């Protein structure tokens, strides 16, 4: 594709790409530097003479220790993990079954239901959080992990269903017919033949659902109130800022540690994540 001299390759491709990568990753670098920088260095004004923003010679673990000793951070991590895992499993279960039905079965209103799923896929959480908060309170679920475990599927299921529909549609009909000719019931053909073939799709949906639950903020902010019930994003926001005072060291340490589980899951399944992401935008 690229013809021409070396300098052209650098000017038109390599340098812009390096700039993109630099800007996209710099905030994470900044998070890491701040996490390990002692308070004395952290709060030097930006125009102080010996200000050395990009490095520290006195790395410290004080902010991370503060997080575990003075706040419920470990608890928030556990809560977030638990909520993300359970809501992902629920959503996968519902999404795989619904996706299968919508993609491979003939029944009245199949088309209409498919559209309905697509529309709920597009309903943002911020549209419904106030009435939902009332409903959660009426169901006596307020301030429990179940308030999130049961509501996160509302945005995860449509997503999983939509993605799974794409995967199921790509599996040839003959595969199922063969199984049925060999005497398998419809149910068995689905469970033992079709679903195993769709495992890559299930992995993709699961990983994206997991990262989406880990990322969710407004429901967690509104439905949870006691410090030991909170998720990482909400805990960090509400417990590490007192009035106008930001505890930047612990805040960045919390942001860094709170990102690590997602980053690890992502790093193991990059290809599945990417294929899920690109599958999710196929019309």
């Amino acid at each position, binding site marked *: 594709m690229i013809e021409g001299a070396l300098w052209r390759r650098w000017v038109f491709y390599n340098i812009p790409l390096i700039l993109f990568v630099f800007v996209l990753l710099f905030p994470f670098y900044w998070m890491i530097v701040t996490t390990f920088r002692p308070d004395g260095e952290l709060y030097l004004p930006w125009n102080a003479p010996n200000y050395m923003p990009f490095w520290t010679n006195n790395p410290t673990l004080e902010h991370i220790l503060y997080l575990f000793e003075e706040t419920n951070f470990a608890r928030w991590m556990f809560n977030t993990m638990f909520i993300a895992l359970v809501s992902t499993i629920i959503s996968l279960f519902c999404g795989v079954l619904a996706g299968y039905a919508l993609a491979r079965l003939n029944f009245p209103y199949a088309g209409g239901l498919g559209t309905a799923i697509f529309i709920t896929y597009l309903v943002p959480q911020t549209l419904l959080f106030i009435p939902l908060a*009332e409903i959660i309170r009426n169901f006596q679920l307020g301030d429990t992990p179940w308030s999130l475990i049961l509501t996160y599927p509302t945005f995860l299921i449509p997503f999983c269903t939509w993605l799974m529909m794409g995967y199921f549609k790509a599996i040839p009909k003959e595969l199922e017919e063969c199984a049925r000719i060999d005497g398998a019931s419809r149910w068995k053909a689905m469970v033992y033949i079709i679903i195993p073939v769709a495992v890559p799709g299930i992995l993709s949906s699961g990983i994206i659902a997991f990262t989406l639950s880990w990322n969710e903020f407004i429901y967690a902010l509104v439905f949870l109130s006691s410090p030991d019930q909170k998720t990482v994003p909400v805990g960090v926001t509400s417990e590490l800022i007192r009035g106008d005072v930001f505890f930047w060291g612990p805040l960045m340490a919390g942001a860094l540690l709170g990102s690590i589980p997602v980053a690890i899951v992502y790093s193991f399944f990059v290809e599945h994540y990417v294929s899920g992401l690109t599958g999710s935008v196929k019309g």
Partner: protein
Amino acid sequence: MTVSALPAAESKRLSPRLRKLEDERWLALALLAPTAILLGLFIAYPFFEGVMLSLSSARVGQPGEFVGLKNFHKIWDDSIFRTTVWNTFWYTGVTTVFKLALGLWLAILLNRHFKGKAIIRAFILLPFIIPTVLSTFAWKWMFDPTFSVINWTLFQLGLITTRINWLGDPDLAMTSIIIINIWRGVPFFAITLLAGLQTISPELHEAAAIDGARPWQRFWHVTWPLLMPVTLVVVLFSVIQTFADFQLVYVMTGGGPANATHLFATYAYQLGIGTGLLAEGAAISLAMFPFLFVIVVVQLLYIRRVETR
């Protein structure tokens, strides 16, 4: 079908429940039931409740009574609400244009073979997968009025002489928020558009090149039209997510300074949860609905037109 006798004979041995599942309609019903129950309970029902709430005078701890469209009249006359509407459109419009342009550029940069491509692609998506609130805090710290690393860099480069108070001025605060949204959204655009680019056969480019098309013409007449269907869906998703955004503004400014940077969601939160005016908060959130509805319908119609062309 001669073979149909076999499954029928088999199904006699199945339990009555499983036999019912042999009928596609019953099977579909069974498979869709869990989804329908959860979505009905936590989307359809809250939507209905939200409409009722917005037509009432409810506050926290006070059920209130039916007041008709009073809340909508009230927010219509509210100057903060008008700023909010304007902000939301501005925020959505500007970020979408930049995300599309930069995302497409990045996708084109990635759409070739070079060493380390897989690693770069994996790293590039980080802004999109790391929880928004957490990465936004890193930005907030970078934009901190006193300790800003951005100010430091601009100062060292000789571009500024005094500090820039990024989050203290309404326009600058909005600009900061827009920058962060673009930063977070570009990877999503780039990776999905890259997937679209990879489906375009290189032979088309070669053919166009042989016919004498210059690179820019090849992009405009070959790549862009073929990329259109993917682009439209990506834009649709992005527009909806941006329009209904909450986290970024909540963390960066909380809607301030002086309520100048509110979006629908943050203003609804401030009134509904912050000050306990549930009915008005619900009305503001619901006011997003007609806009979102129009966006979705227009986009879907357009997508259909492009796809059938």
